[in-house]
Structure formats: structure tokens, C-alpha cells
């Protein structure tokens, strides 16, 4: 119900800029990890970020909910600049769902509690209501029958789907995925991608760092190619994969398409 509500809202105002990165720079010591990044993600859009390891994809993703700070430039969500710290920052993060490569489910809480924690503690939702919402979301990602188990009792693919449900429970405006299938055994990748494709179809705004070309081709509106901390190329998936413009992208695609 909730994600649908967000999706409906999104569908009502599609195409408006939702996340805007403007001249964003970041260093890790002497490493210039993000270089003058310009990126706009519009409402309802699915942007796939692709690029060699170490090119700054995770860092980029993490600046959008300020898990990483930036040195220069600005990031706005729905027109508002990201707050620097404190309660305002916490409120902002509640609007941005994040799915990590390593799932990061709360190890001491059941699957159901993992999903209800945010709604009850951050949104002040009543437990009964949060339980109902969580069960709906868990059903939707296909792990409803695992609600009372602990994360370690689930397979990686199941854990990642719970992580998606946990993020959705906050009714986020945008979802960030940082290599959500990279830690999964091959046979579990599809079940997670299927959930993500569904989400994309329902109009969720998504930023997805992934090397899954199949996902990019079916679900992405745009592919952003990064190398050495910079956005080198931006295009539709079809154009990007069949006709990459930059030498870096051609080289990279040559390597990953070989197998």
C-alpha cells in the first residue's frame, strides 16, 4: 500500500528532478574519489551506475543519503539541500531507502522486527500497524513465511529481499542499491532482480549500482558510466551497451561482455 502510494504520487509528477548532484567533489585523503559530479535523477526514473571497481560508484551512492559527506558542490533531494547532521539528517535518510551489497540486516532482530523497526521508531507508527505493513511487504518480496526467523537462518537472496522490504517500509522517495546482487550465489540473483524490476515498473525512483546488464536493459531509463571518480558517459541502456562512446566504456564493456 505504501510503496504504491509513493509510486502513485511519483506517477502524478513524473519527470521532475528528485535527486540533483551539482558539481560534487570528494576526496579520501589524496584520492579524488568524486570529481565534479553532475547527476540528476528524475522522479520515477531508474538510473543504473556502472563502472570498474574503485571508480567511486559506492561513494557516489552513499553521498545521496550522506553516509559519506562531500567536500564541495551540493546535493538536493526534492529541492531541499541535504542537512549536515542531527535530526534533520535522520529525517532525510528516512526518505531515502538504501540496500547494501552485504544486506546488513539487524542480526539480533527477527525478519519482521527488521522491517518494523524503522516505521515504529522513526515514523512513530503503532506496532500493530507496522506489523501489518511489514507482513504485506514481506509477502510482496516473497519471504512472508520467514517473518519469525533471524537473518542468519535465511539464504542470501532471501536476506536481500528482506533488506528491500525494510527500506520500502519507510515509504522512501528514492531507493539506492549498491551492488545488491554482488554477494549472492548465481542462483539467487534472479529472485532479487525480479523484485527490483517490479519496483521499477511500479514507478519507484531508483539509483542502482550494478553490473547486471540484463537488469539495466529491462529496467533502466539511463546508464551512467563512471571511471576514476568521474562520470564519463551517460546514455540509454540500449545505446550505451551497443554503441559506447568513450574508450573507457568500450574497454570496460569489452572486459565484462567477454564472459
Amino acid at each position, binding site marked *: 500500500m505504501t510503496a504504491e502510494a509513493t509510486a502513485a504520487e511519483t506517477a502524478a509528477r513524473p519527470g521532475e528532478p528528485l535527486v540533483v548532484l551539482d558539481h560534487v567533489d570528494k576526496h579520501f585523503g589524496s584520492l579524488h574519489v568524486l570529481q565534479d559530479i553532475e547527476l540528476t535523477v528524475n522522479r520515477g526514473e531508474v538510473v543504473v551506475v556502472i563502472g570498474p571497481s574503485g571508480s567511486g560508484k559506492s561513494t557516489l551512492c552513499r553521498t545521496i*543519503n550522506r*553516509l559519506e559527506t562531500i567536500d564541495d558542490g551540493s546535493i538536493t533531494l526534492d529541492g531541499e539541500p541535504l542537512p549536515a*547532521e*542531527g*535530526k534533520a539528517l*535522520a*529525517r*532525510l*535518510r*528516512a*526518505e*531515502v*531507502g*538504501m540496500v*547494501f551489497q*552485504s544486506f*546488513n*540486516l*539487524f*542480526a*539480533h532482530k527477527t525478519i519482521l522486527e527488521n522491517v518494523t*523497526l*524503522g516505521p515504529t*521508531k*522513526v515514523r512513530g507508527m503503532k506496532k500493530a500497524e507496522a506489523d501489518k505493513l511489514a507482513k504485506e511487504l514481506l509477502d510482496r518480496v516473497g519471504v512472508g513465511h520467514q517473518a519469525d526467523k*533471524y537473518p*542468519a*537462518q535465511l539464504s542470501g537472496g532471501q536476506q536481500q529481499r528482506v*533488506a528491500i522490504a*525494510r*527500506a520500502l517500509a*519507510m515509504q522512501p522517495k528514492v531507493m539506492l542499491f549498491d551492488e545488491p546482487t554482488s554477494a549472492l550465489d548465481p542462483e539467487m540473483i534472479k529472485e532479487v532482480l525480479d523484485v527490483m524490476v517490479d519496483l521499477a515498473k511500479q514507478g519507484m525512483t531508483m539509483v542502482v549500482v550494478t553490473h547486471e546488464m540484463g537488469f539495466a536493459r529491462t529496467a533502466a531509463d539511463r546508464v551512467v558510466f563512471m571511471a576514476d571518480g568521474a562520470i564519463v558517459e551517460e546514455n540509454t541502456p540500449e545505446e550505451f551497451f551497443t554503441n559506447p562512446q568513450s574508450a573507457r566504456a568500450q574497454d570496460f564493456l569489452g572486459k565484462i561482455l567477454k564472459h
Partner: protein
Amino acid sequence: MGPVIDNLDLYWSGFLQSLEFILWCLVGSLLVGTVMAAFRVSPVPSLRALAVAYVNVFRNTPLTIVLFFMAFGLPELGINQSYFFFAALGLILYTGAFVCEALRSGVNAVPAGQAEAARALGLTFTQSMRQVILPQAFRSAIPPLGSVQIAMFKNSAVAGAFGIGGDLYSVGKTLTSARGYDYVPVLTGVAIGYLIITLTAAALLTLLERKVAIVR
């Protein structure tokens, strides 16, 4: 064991008094240590500095000096309380420093992704600590926390020497010096009293550890 059998009621009341003292110190030191551990890892520099100073002072000062200060220093500063209170305060502050360090190692054992996931959901620092980090830190810190608390049980006898009054230590002292009983049987009785407390605690700890273990 004649003296023990003859004075079982005295031992029993001493045992209860020691137990009460220990329970106060247990709760107090866990509270103080938890708050200080949260300060220690907080993003606020002044809170971190406070926690570091606290741990450094109380972990590196001999317990007897801490107790002397409480029992004789605080009254000179115009703070008047019972010796029970002063001794408990001293032992709480002393033990709290070790609790803080045990918990901090527990916090460090919680994978960084747990805190990130909590923050990404929109939990504030305090909420992340209470809901996600500390519950896991406590679980992995149970063995060191257990050692710290068992050391505290035994240190309560030192506090007893400062005059909690009516505890196991003073029972031993009364029976030997005022009533002239032999040391060995009297102190054996005292030791048994402490052993009952520590061994029970150790058994409870093992149960607790099994019950709350986290599988990752």
C-alpha cells in the same frame, strides 16, 4: 566449622547485606558503564573526552584509593551519606570504567554495516545505539562483562573493609576480633558466602550467553 554453625543467622544476614550491596553495584556499574560507552563512541567530541577521562581515572586508580576518597574525601566536601552509599558509589564508578571498556570492545565487534543500516533507515544516533548497536554489543561482551562483575563481587569485600556494615566481611571481623573465634573456620564461612554468590552468577552467565547468542 563450629563457629559457622553457631552463627548461621549472623552469616545469613551478612550474606544478604553483601548480596544487596553487590546488586546495587551491579546495576549501577552497568548503567554508568553503558552510558560512558555510548559517550565514548558518540559523534560529540566533548562527550567522548568525558568518557575517556572517566575511564582513565577510574581504571588506573587503585580501588582502595577510590574508596578512601569516597569515604573520607566526599564528607570533607560536605557530602554526607551512609558508608554503604559511599562504598557503593566508589565501587560503581570503579567497576563502571571496566564495564565501559568491555562494552566498547563489544561495540567494536558489531559490524560497521549494522550502524550504517540503522542510520540509513533514519534512526538517530541514540536510537541506533539503543536499538541496534548496544543490544549486539552486550551480547558479544557478555564474557568480559561477566569477568568484570565477578571481580566486582570480590572487590565488594574490600568495600566491606571500609565499613558497609553488617556484610560478610564485617561478620568475619566481628567473629574473629570481638568474639575471639579462630580465623580459619570463620573466614572459610565468609569465603563460602562469596563463592555461593560468584558461582551462581557464573552459572547464570553461561545460561544467558547461550540464550542470547547471535548467529551471523
